[in-house]
């Protein structure tokens, strides 16, 4: 912690910690509130795929990390000192009961099989509670800091479960959003099943996909089968959800009951990540990607698009970003914001760059340029 002196006296300055998961390890990038200079620490767990790491919003020193490998399986690491030291915690993600079957790529049925943890979501409401979204799609919960995990099996056992099918990246539960004041209300998203909501802490679930249109499935009104890539919300308006779908940027004003397309003037509405501004609930960021077969920005120009109106009207943010010969991708968990007064926006690329904006996206600079391919970016605002 550093300190500054101003006319009001001595004030503790906030810090900024960016948690980066990559194909070959994790990195922790630290700065002060100015976010002008950065220290890069890592790789942590070199050689392992770090799908996600995220800190508790209650205890900023507690960070959870998903460490995974095609050779050696799944490990969950936990730090209680802000990433200085780590201990492996529980990695038993056994499905509840007989797992059953889901659709495979070729339309045959295939048994549910655990592969890895895609996303860890430390609870807003309890420092010991953390959720894990896994492949094959299921939601797990730990109430002892990650030592033990129990599946919230009402989701996987939903009557539509046998109809769920994998997207190209696998059948993964990749997004977990908690309601800011109601611990029993959760939203999750699964590729390629869709979005789901529970209001009873995970016992029962409802698909919330009305209004989504997906050309990849024959029935446009299907309850499931939609490839939702990412969801976000602003805590001041928790019934307003934003979605980056395989194609289409969508918004719901009624907690997912219905969705409206807000792609507006985006150059392409394919993409992976979507993020809401820290202080402006109608300011939303996406990174348009050319198409499902061309996972790079249109025209070789890396552009973040910002809407200040909750979608439909989008402006390109380009200052400081490469505007020629850029063919990287930005994955669903690889964009995040900080909570400083001038909201910082961050994203990582498949080319190993982590870009940061200190001014809500008006200008950008690379914090670091040559990391392994970035899988996830999360940001802590330290007070």
């Amino acid at each position: 912690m550093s300190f500054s002196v101003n006319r009001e006296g001595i004030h503790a300055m906030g810090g900024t910690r960016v948690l980066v998961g990559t194909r070959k390890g994790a990195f922790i990038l630290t700065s002060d509130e100015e976010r002008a200079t950065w220290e890069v620490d890592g790789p942590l767990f070199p050689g392992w795929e770090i799908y996600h790491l995220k800190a508790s919003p209650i205890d900023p020193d507690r960070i959870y990390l998903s460490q995974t490998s095609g050779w050696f399986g799944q490990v969950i690491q936990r730090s209680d000192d802000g990433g200085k030291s780590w201990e492996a915690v529980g990695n038993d993600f056994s499905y509840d009961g007989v797992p059953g079957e889901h659709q495979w790529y070729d339309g045959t049925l295939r048994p549910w099989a655990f592969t890895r943890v895609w996303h860890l979501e430390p609870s807003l409401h309890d420092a010991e509670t953390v959720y894990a979204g896994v492949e094959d799609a299921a939601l797990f919960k730990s109430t002892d800091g990650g030592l033990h995990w129990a599946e919230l099996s009402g989701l996987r056992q939903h009557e539509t479960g046998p109809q769920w099918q994998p997207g190209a990246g696998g059948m993964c539960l990749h997004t977990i959003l908690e309601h800011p004041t109601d611990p029993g209300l959760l939203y999750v998203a699964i590729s390629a099943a869709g979005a789901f909501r529970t209001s009873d802490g995970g016992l029962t679930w409802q698909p919330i996909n009305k209004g989504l249109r997906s050309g990849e499935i024959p029935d446009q009104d299907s309850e499931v089968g939609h490839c939702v890539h990412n969801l976000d919300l602003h805590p001041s308006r928790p019934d307003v959800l934003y979605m980056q779908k395989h194609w289409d940027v969508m918004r719901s004003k009624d907690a997912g009951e219905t969705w409206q397309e807000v792609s507006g003037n985006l150059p392409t509405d394919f993409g992976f990540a979507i993020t809401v501004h820290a202080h402006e609930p109608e300011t939303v960021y996406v990174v348009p990607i050319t198409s499902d077969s061309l996972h790079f920005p249109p025209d070789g120009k890396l552009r973040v698009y910002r809407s200040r109106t909750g979608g439909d009207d989008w402006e390109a943010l380009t200052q400081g970003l490469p505007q020629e010969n850029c063919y990287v991708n930005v994955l669903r968990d690889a964009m995040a914001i900080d909570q400083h007064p001038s909201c910082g926006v961050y994203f990582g690329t498949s080319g190993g760059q982590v870009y940061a904006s200190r001014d809500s996206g008006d200008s950008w600079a690379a914090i670091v340029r040559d990391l392994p391919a970035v899988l996830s970016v999360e940001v802590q605002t330290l007070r």
Partner: protein
Amino acid sequence: MSYTVRVVLPAHLRALAKVHGDVSVEVAGVVTQRTVLDALETDFPVLVGTIRDRTTAQRRAFVRFFACAEDLSHEGPDTPLPEQVASGHEPFLVVGAMAGG
């Protein structure tokens, strides 16, 4: 009867278990893949699930078991390992399958 078996882990699992070099485990009774791995996982619980599936006990697909210059990966888990392993003269190797290109 108890045997001291030397186990060589791949680098990633040595880092995970926070050990350097070979690991020695005590095995009571017959020395087999199963009893060696049981002993290893008892001493290093962090390795549970990383070498074999925690539910089925099947060897993970990209893990191999070598000893005495032989690939023992497809031997049964309860087949006795070579005498040289049980006597501690030769190690039991856990190997990550070659990959890359």
